[in-house]
């Protein structure tokens, strides 16, 4: 297999030419998303340029503490995104969700770099940062789905929830059906993608490994390992996020505390 070709800034500029087609459709059909699309393209460019330059430095130094700090910052950003996405109060939820994300990312990442890749340095930037990012991105999506499903269904079925308390359920027993449904809802997308992977499209990591010049068999091994790591990470993070958030979201009588949400 050949080495990956460097696109270069000239090639990248050519990629932007492709944008003429969707922009032409948007303008011709007067779809009211032109401004938003422009902002999205600019944001994507600036964010990725910034991250690219920063990662160059991080990869060059490959200092385990710096790599760890990068992971922690990514977890912090994901934490804030979930809190905003689920309309939760920062003060009550920042730490429980941070811990859930950290555990959901750290366990599969360290397992991936250690027992699976057998790297001597567990916090090797080349593996920890991209793999951590992929797992964390999936944890973030799963957390939003799981937490929203959990708290929305308790709100929507308030009478059934209160009835279970009235029937003698403790908090853990009363939330059990909503907890189960939330875990199912949050894991369903990963299960669906595991079911159809390779049939509909080549997944991102496999594409990256092939573009990087490796054999498809190597790419498949990476893809299987990352899918399992993502599934493990999302299960850990959603389970812990709901479990650790319970204390902040219910009052002493077991009633969902509306003040805990915006």
């Amino acid at each position, binding site marked *: 297999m050949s080495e990956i070709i460097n696109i270069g800034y000239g090639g990248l500029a050519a990629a932007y030419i492709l944008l003429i087609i969707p922009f032409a459709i948007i303008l011709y059909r007067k779809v009211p998303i032109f401004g938003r699309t422009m902002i999205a393209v600019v944001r994507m460019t600036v964010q990725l340029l910034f991250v690219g330059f920063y990662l160059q430095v991080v990869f060059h130094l490959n200092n385990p503490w710096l790599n760890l700090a990068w992971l922690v910052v990514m977890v912090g950003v994901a934490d804030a995104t979930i809190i905003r996405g689920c309309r939760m109060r920062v003060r009550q939820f920042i730490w429980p969700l941070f811990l859930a994300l950290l555990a959901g990312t750290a366990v599969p990442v360290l397992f991936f770099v250690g027992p699976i890749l057998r790297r001597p340095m567990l916090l090797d930037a080349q593996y920890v940062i991209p793999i951590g990012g992929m797992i964390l991105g999936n944890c973030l999506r799963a957390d939003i789905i799981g937490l929203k499903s959990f708290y929305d269904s308790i709100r929507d*079925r308030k009478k059934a929830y209160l*009835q279970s308390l009235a*029937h003698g*359920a403790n908090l853990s027993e009363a939330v059990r059906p909503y907890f189960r449904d939330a875990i199912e809802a949050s894991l369903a997308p990963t299960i669906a993608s595991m079911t159809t992977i390779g049939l509909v499209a080549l997944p991102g990591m496999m594409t990256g490994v092939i573009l990087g010049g490796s054999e498809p068999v190597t790419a498949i091994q990476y893809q299987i390992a990352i899918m399992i790591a993502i599934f493990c990470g999302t299960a850990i993070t959603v389970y812990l996020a709901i479990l650790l958030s319970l204390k902040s979201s219910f009052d*002493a*009588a*077991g009633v969902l505390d509306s003040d805990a949400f915006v």
Partner: protein
Amino acid sequence: MENKVNHEDIINISGLEVVFDGRIVIRDFSLHLGQGEKLLLTGPSGSGKSTLLLCLMGFIRPVKGAIYIDGQRLGDDNIWQLRQNIVWVAQEPDPGKGSVRDVIQRPFSYRANRDLKDNMTKLGEYLRRFRLNKELLDKDVSVLSGGEKQRIALITAILLQRPIILLDEPSSALDQTSKQAVMDFLVEAKGLSILAVSHDRDWAGCVDRVERIGSEDRQ
């Protein structure tokens, strides 16, 4: 309409004030329910009848006043323990998901009710008594009518054998025959303390006392 009094109070409410969405729903309300007494609370819509039952379950916190259950003041420290003495049957109950059998059995899987599992042997008797077919047990609760849900909720409450039953509009979805069956049961139920809130004046005939909320006049 005060047939029997002088019961030892199992519920005592004094000077209760409840605010909901910035509006006072219950103002300076007091009430007592004796042990084994059956009381009907009436009042216009929005007078706070259902809210009062939610306060007794600890689901809503009053801003003023006190609630005593079996002599203990209801508070954060004892709400879970005091709740074990009460069962609440909501108006238009939401039984959750699953078959009727699952819904009735679910509360007996809770740690607090595990020693009551034998009560399930009385299920057939109550189904007959409340005019429900045994075949209903295998149906999904989502296909039940409002009246069936109400009777299933009541049967579950009775099987839990709590000394206090709170009923919120217990006959709102029942036909006359089913309503009579429920009223007959409640008349015969000795030792149970029942607080029912309803618009339906028919209930007055099967309770010991009628009180009113939302206006000054008491009967």
